[in-house]
């Protein structure tokens, strides 16, 4: 198989590089359920789930329809600032454009919800890459913390060890 370096059509030995840049800005419209969730989170400092009338799951992140039953959701459910870790990882990878590691990404199922929502877990010692801290394990209970000043984005809240 020929590589560009040994193409018979070229006398060059160095690859010829052309830089190209993708630059598109998007303004994504949020559905009213997501908007309500973020508004409530911002203004009242609490998380809310929404119920599917058919399968009766309390869904978080909330959405305007249940993708399993394909019906509109209805009925907001206030959720307490506590839950259980269902999924987690501690990231040690450095990627351009993303925050410096280490950080913990966790899906927490708030008490009363049937599904889990992802956010950062703060306040644990993540320095031992081989051994996640005891607080960051499946089944561990966590507290859901809210920033004092909130702007209505997901990073307004995070998870912390309980107690």
């Amino acid at each position: 198989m020929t590589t560009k370096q040994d193409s018979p059509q070229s006398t060059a030995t160095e690859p010829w590089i052309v830089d190209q840049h993708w630059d598109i800005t998007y303004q994504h419209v949020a559905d009213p359920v997501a908007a309500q969730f973020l508004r409530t989170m911002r203004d009242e400092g609490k998380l809310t789930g929404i119920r599917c009338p058919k399968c009766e799951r309390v869904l978080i992140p909330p959405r305007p329809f249940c993708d399993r039953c394909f019906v509109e959701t209805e009925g907001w459910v206030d959720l307490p600032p506590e839950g259980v870790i269902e999924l987690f990882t501690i990231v040690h990878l450095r990627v351009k454009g993303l925050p410096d590691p280490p950080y913990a990404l966790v899906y927490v199922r708030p008490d009363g919800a049937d599904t889990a929502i992802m956010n950062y877990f703060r306040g644990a010692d993540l320095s031992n890459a081989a051994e996640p801290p005891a607080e960051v394990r499946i089944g561990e209970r966590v507290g859901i913390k809210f920033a004092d000043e909130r702007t209505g984005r997901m990073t307004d809240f995070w998870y912390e060890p309980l107690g």
Partner: protein
Amino acid sequence: MNSRPVAAVGVGQTRFTNTAEAATYPELLRQATQTALADAGLGMDDIDAVVFALAPESLMGINHAERWCVEAIGAAGKPVLRVQTGGATGMSAVHAGYHHVAGGAAERVLVVGADRVRESGDAQQIFNKIWDPIYERSMAHTTISLIAMSASRYMWLYNSTEEDMARVSVKAHKNGANNPNAHIRREVTIDEVLESRYLAWPLKLLDTCPQSAGGCATVLSSKEALEPSQDPAWISGIGMSNDTYWVGDRIGPKLIYDYGDGGALEAAARQAYEQAGISDPAKEVDAVETYASFTPVELHNAEALGLCALGTAGPLFQEGFFDMDGQIPLNPSGGVICTNPISVTAMVRFVEGVLQIRGTAEARQVKGAETVVTTGSGGSHQFFPVSVLTREPRSAN
């Protein structure tokens, strides 16, 4: 279901390499195309339609590259369409080609694709842009953190360990060293895997696929259009299923598939097995090429494919059950851990399956392989196409 029988009669792969060393994208397509056509003993004039496999083109940097590359795949003037299902693309494309022939719209279809995964730098920068923009895009989430979470859950569900994962890596690299096309062709030891640096716990560098470049193609044919010189591998069963995008829904009291398990792959495999008349895969399957870009995925895939019971893959790996000389060799090619040219990775599984059926897989041949299962995976561990290849055409009993 009585579909017209369809066989793979030609295959082609380029050697897979780092992006910097690879030929240009159209050139990779052209090479794969020409190799597959030559292998089938056909010319482009014999091809009725083309299916193009291209996953996120933000990786290789040309939007809708199917337009730019139409001539590199011999498709100017022909019917051509492009499939994009993330990592599953390569096999979704094979299925699309299958439907062309089984539906009678074509006698011979070329399915082709290529990738240059690091063209835009780190692929994970691109993968950060696949998530829901409202709820998940603000997090520093990548496909590595995505699978790391599945891995940590699998460990919790079944008391599986990082050693279990490491054994997958050792086997993968050992097999890959036998594969002249593989990107990574060096063996590793368990200790090397366990000591490699953490990317996202519990995934370490040697638990992870490379970012590869290369091309792959296959020619599918109807039974009527077979040529005597061809050695057909029959697509006796296909299946496809997917799970909800929302990973957070795959836990809790009302889950359908647990996120630690293989997920909707199980349903897809069941469809394909039924079509192929396979009732006991653990006994009837000779070899498997399954899409697992990280070591823990191979563990739960083996289970989802019905090769062993839930949670037992780890101990079975330890016994060598899935080794080349084991009961059911898994990824004789070295799998995705050794080669991941995303747009075609799932097609490479299929092509490797074809080589196994023909008996031409050389040092990585599983002796007497007559029934081979090949799978793809894409999205948030979400899309799962499955194809069963057999030596003789088979159908549901």
